[in-house]
């Protein structure tokens, strides 16, 4: 522990300190009673009281209740009190004094290191720099996560195109909703080009989407990373299998391209989000399995914060995907145009994650 007795902040305060306090004690009483700790307290107490008054106000009304001058003085007084605490620990045995200084220092510390108070600028910086940087840093996890899903999709496609019975294995009844190998081609085709029934229908689709399958898979992929990452890999793989099986079914009826248009118009964004969530889950899993030079808990915290950034990004992507699914897909009914939208979103996301915030430190 570095015990700094007189940091710069302390020396900035001489005007407001009763410099004569120690002398007065000598004048009034016998020198026997002038303990060093007593003189010390008499000299420093006004600064403590000023900090205490500032903190009490800020705790009640928030940091915004302090004016600019007070805000500037807060860290100076805080450092002064910290140094008082260090001195008091070395020279004073007054338990109440030590407890008071510790409590005052902690309260000031909570206030000063308690986080940014401006939520809006925090969000702005997050979108412009933190998120794309975190995604770039996690590119290998993202690659692995995407690989899991692609492998699942390829396997699901190959198996199902060879024998349509596999479809039942990969896709649950609840998800298929009658879209299975026994359905006729028109039943399969109709939902691809349905335009919904007006604005209400679309918004409902959008809202309910938030609570449905894919959003849940994304969050689960992240959360299950906690369980060593294996469930994340399986989840991604099974999600791929389902996807592959659907594509195979539609492809076997010559609707492959139409399905891809229907899927990718929002799927580029949505599957991207799931891949990001999976990558975050893998990061957490790896942090637990290979803690490196840290303890498991420390490493979990380090990876967890980076992973959470990515998941928040993924949640935002899921919102965009929901918009595209709720509106774009119902409004754009031509497969070629859907591919165009899918392509544009892919390019935009790639540009954002690869380029945004590059110059920032």
């Amino acid at each position, binding site marked *: 522990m570095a015990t700094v007795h007189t940091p710069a902040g302390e020396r900035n305060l001489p005007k407001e300190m009763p410099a004569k306090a120690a002398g007065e004690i000598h004048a009034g009483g016998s020198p026997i009673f002038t303990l060093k700790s007593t003189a010390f307290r008499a000299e420093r107490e006004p600064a403590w009281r000023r900090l205490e008054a500032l903190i009490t106000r800020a705790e009640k009304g928030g940091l915004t209740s302090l004016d600019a001058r007070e805000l500037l003085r807060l860290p100076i007084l805080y450092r002064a009190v910290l140094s008082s605490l260090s001195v008091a620990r070395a020279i004073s045995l007054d338990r109440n004094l030590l407890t008071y200084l510790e409590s005052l220092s902690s309260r000031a510390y909570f206030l000063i290191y308690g986080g940014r108070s401006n939520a809006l600028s925090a969000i702005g910086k997050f979108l412009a720099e933190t998120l794309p940087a975190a995604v770039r840093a996690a590119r290998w996890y993202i690659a692995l996560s995407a690989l899991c899903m692609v492998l699942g999709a390829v396997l699901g496609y190959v198996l199902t195109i060879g024998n349509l019975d596999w479809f039942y294995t990969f896709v649950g009844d609840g998800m298929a909703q009658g879209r299975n190998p026994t359905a006729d081609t028109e039943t399969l085709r109709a939902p691809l080009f349905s335009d919904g029934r007006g604005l209400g229908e679309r918004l409902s689709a959008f809202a309910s989407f938030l609570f449905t399958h894919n959003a849940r898979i994304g969050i689960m992929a992240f959360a299950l990373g906690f369980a060593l990452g294996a469930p994340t890999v399986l989840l991604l793989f099974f999600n791929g299998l389902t996807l592959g099986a659907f594509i195979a079914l539609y492809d076997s009826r010559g609707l492959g391209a139409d399905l891809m248009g229907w899927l990718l118009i929002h799927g580029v964004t949505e599957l991207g989000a799931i891949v990001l969530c999976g990558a975050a889950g893998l990061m957490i899993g790896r942090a637990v399995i290979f803690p490196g030079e840290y303890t498991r808990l420390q490493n979990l915290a380090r990876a967890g*914060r980076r992973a*959470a950034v990515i998941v928040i990004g993924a949640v935002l992507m899921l919102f965009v995907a929901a918009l595209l699914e709720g509106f774009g897909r119902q409004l754009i009914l031509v497969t070629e145009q859907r591919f165009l939208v899918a392509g544009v979103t892919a390019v935009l996301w790639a540009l954002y994650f690869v380029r945004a915030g590059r110059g920032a430190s």
Partner: protein
Amino acid sequence: MTGSDSMMQTAQSIGPRSRLSRRIETPEGVILPIELGQRGERAVAFILDFLIVMGIIIALYLLLIVVILGGKFGGIGWLFALVMLASFFIRSFYFAFFELRWQGRTPGKRTMGLRVIDRAGGPLTPQAVLARNLMREVEVFLPITVLISGTFKGEIWETLATIGWLAVFMFMPLFNRDALRVGDMIAGTWVVSAPKALLLRDLAHGEATDAAEAPASTYYNFTTKQLDAYGIYELQTLEGVLRDQRPTAGEVRAEVAKRIRNKIGMPPADPANPDTERFLAEFYTAMRARLERRMLFGIRRRDKHDKR
């Protein structure tokens, strides 16, 4: 704060530190003791916040019903969707919003005197706040949603699995020393309680509240040998006794004075004029002067058994 409260606080800080005491190092390199929030307090804080969130969401739905009954709007589908969206946002960002704005406190935590800080002693970053509250979605809201929808479907095994999931996450703070929930582990945070301590008068001043009025001379003269009968632990226990303001304090002080006189080989006090207060105050001051002086020479005598 009443006298007995401050007495208890003094006694607590002298005695063995509680199981929830931790130390953090500030970026300035000073070690600060902190007290983790008790699990019960945290549960109450969460329930308060949960009730607030639910209150807002229910109010939104009531508003929706009023609007629907009013019948001014054509389709109710999109209104319903809007309310669903709003409630999703409210419950997801309520905690993060307040913890960002109020330096790690939500209304519930503020009521209970709790706050979130960085476990390593650094600043509480927005990422950490978002991370610990995003996990809340997984820990609580997601399983509750599944539980409600699962109950309607009547799938018993699904309900049981969800209850298990909910239990593992909710009771996680009970299974680790630092009372961390999963969100805290991920974000590298912990929840501490921040009690205020009052600065009481300096007992080494005698009765005077102002340093200038300190008594000019002392009545008792203690020898170095007498002052060396005790160490820091006893000094601070005596401080607690002197600061005690409960009705029984007088008796306690008389008993303590008797024992000290016995220990340092002074004759018992005159029963007609025991002079307890002055004796204890002067003994305290003299002992503190002696111990503090020795401390300046690098000798910290822990207690009376410490042979230094």
